[in-house]
């Protein structure tokens, strides 16, 4: 039986399999959150999530949608501040960090600043954010990329976050922490690493159904291709189940059929003769599937409303 999965789900699973237990990982919004949560459930139960704005060690019972929001430090061990977190990383206590970029070069250097020239950019990108700090200070960074020729380039338009700079020992010589640097590049086509000596990018393993030629074709610079290239296992049934049912059951990140979105409706409550605001959840078809909260406080009333709202009765209830 062939399992169906999206490219995003594959990326998440590949990333989740890279961690070592009993370490810390910097978590950014999106795929990193899901990968860390998946790893905690299946592979590295003692992985400690750390968010750049201050949350450390939350069990992540609620899936966060932003790096500073309350869910990142719900029941956390520690709610610190940005400097604290960056200094914890500077002190060498953060093992993994995730990075994304618009461009990557053969040494894992990244561009998240501009496409074109800095003074007159064709595209102004969001900027370094915590990426530069993560890429400089963590021991091992995992870079998540779309594998496209114009993204895997010989020369970056702008070097935002250092990888191995010009390769060899140039990263260490620039003063960046000894023994730190890009660890893996995970793409929709393959998982890549870096040559131990030259620090140039090297193909490690192919995603299911992908050929070496496809990888070469989609890379704008010369890759090191070893004689033996393994093939990555596709997402397992368990990985997909945990991801879809336990980690992102509402489909906030994953484009699942069950995907839901928050909305508000107003509803005239007959009992209290007041107009209340009600938070509901709609599925991708627009159908109301859940009633989350109501500005009316009466419990019994809420239940009555709930049924009416689920039936869509609020529409003809002015």
């Amino acid at each position: 039986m062939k399992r169906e999965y999206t490219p995003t789900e594959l990326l998440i699973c590949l990333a989740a399999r890279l961690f070592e237990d009993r370490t810390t990982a910097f978590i950014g919004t999106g795929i990193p959150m899901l990968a860390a949560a998946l790893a905690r459930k299946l592979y590295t139960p003692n992985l400690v999530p750390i968010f750049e704005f201050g949350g450390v060690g939350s069990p992540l019972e609620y899936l966060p949608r932003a790096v500073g929001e309350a869910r990142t430090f719900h029941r956390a061990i520690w709610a610190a501040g940005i400097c604290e977190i960056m200094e914890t990383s500077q002190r060498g206590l953060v093992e993994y960090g995730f990075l994304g970029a618009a461009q990557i070069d053969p040494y894992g250097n990244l561009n998240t600043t501009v496409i074109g020239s800095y003074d007159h950019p064709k595209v102004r990108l969001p900027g370094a954010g915590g990426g530069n700090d993560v890429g400089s200070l963590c021991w091992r960074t995992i870079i998540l990329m779309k594998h496209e020729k114009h993204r895997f380039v010989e020369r970056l338009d702008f070097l935002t976050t250092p990888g191995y700079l010009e390769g060899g020992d140039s990263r260490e010589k620039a003063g960046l922490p000894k023994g730190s640097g890009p660890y893996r590049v995970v793409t929709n086509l393959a998982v890549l690493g870096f040559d131990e000596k030259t620090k140039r990018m090297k193909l490690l393993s192919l995603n299911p159904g992908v050929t070496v030629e496809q990888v070469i074709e989609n890379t704008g610079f010369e890759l090191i291709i070893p004689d033996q290239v393994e093939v990555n296992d596709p997402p397992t049934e368990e990985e997909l189940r945990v991801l879809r049912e336990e980690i992102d059951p509402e489909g906030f990140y994953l484009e699942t059929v069950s995907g839901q979105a928050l909305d508000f409706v107003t509803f005239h409550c007959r009992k209290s003769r007041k107009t209340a605001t009600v938070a509901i959840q709609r599925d991708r078809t627009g159908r109301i599937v859940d009633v989350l909260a109501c500005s009316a406080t009466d419990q019994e009333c809420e239940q009555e409303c709930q049924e009416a709202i689920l039936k869509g009765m609020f529409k003809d209830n002015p």
Partner: protein
Amino acid sequence: MKHHQEGPFDTSQDPPTFVGSPDVEVFRSYLRQHKSFDLKEKVMSEHEAVARFVSDGDYIGFELYGTVRCPMSIAREIVRQRKKHLKVLGQGILEVDLLLAAGLVDYMDITYVGYEVYGVSPILRRAVEQGKVRTADWSNGAIAWRLKAAAMGVPFIPIRSMLGSEMLKTNGAVAMTDPYTGLEVVLLPALVLDVGIIHVHRADPYGNAQIDGIQGFAAELARASKKLIISAEEIVDPEEIRKYPERTIIPYFLVDAVVHAPFGSHPGEMAYMYERDEPHLKMYLQKIRTEEGAQEYLEEYVYSTANHEEYIEKVGGWDRMKVLSKLAVKR
């Protein structure tokens, strides 16, 4: 180290000067002259706070970030009063984008302006790509550390990120070799703000403030600001502050204005109190895709609302706020 011509670093001066000055001697004198240790009440409206403490041309910094604990009621008031030629710290996102959309910003020290899972900011793109705003780029840590240096009262702070990054060419920070270990470090210039703006969970009428959950860079920004506006979800009795003095994040003598702003972070969130307003955000993100849409948003939610109360009514009223409270993850 060559310096970028358009950057914040003016090498024609000796020593060179930055936009957002590292001159802690000037800062010392300013604080001595302007900060009062009187326990006097400073509660005022957004209108009064902005009118009195924000001037055209000021360098402004907002805390925190994204949609988290953002002083939006103050940001909207700055737009209403059309304070011009501002310099801003490009860390706040909703706040900064509002000012950018309103055309009030000349210069940014930027680390990240974007909407995380919802992608890049069209407002930032238009402003920078059309050359309306000068920028210098920094890492997120660097921005917070620059404030920390000012908070410490020293002209620079050494760090180990930003090494090897081209950002140094845009921002003019220099590297040096540590005399003790031989390690290379970047010296970040201290960043002294004209106006700091912070939204907190609670403050007393003098300005003593407490924050729940993550602390962001509130402590650093408060200490790095010449003028400081605090907005608070709740105004509390000073005795509550005195009972737990270790919880004071911002002591009153740093504060110039205290604004009572319940749901002041809307459409953003406030930890343990209320959720961010996802439907409003999505509508906003839809609008700002075009210049016209962005102006429509400003017109409807900022210019045509006279104050924070009217804004709350416009976005769904206190009933909607109550529901957002109920949705919040509690302790």
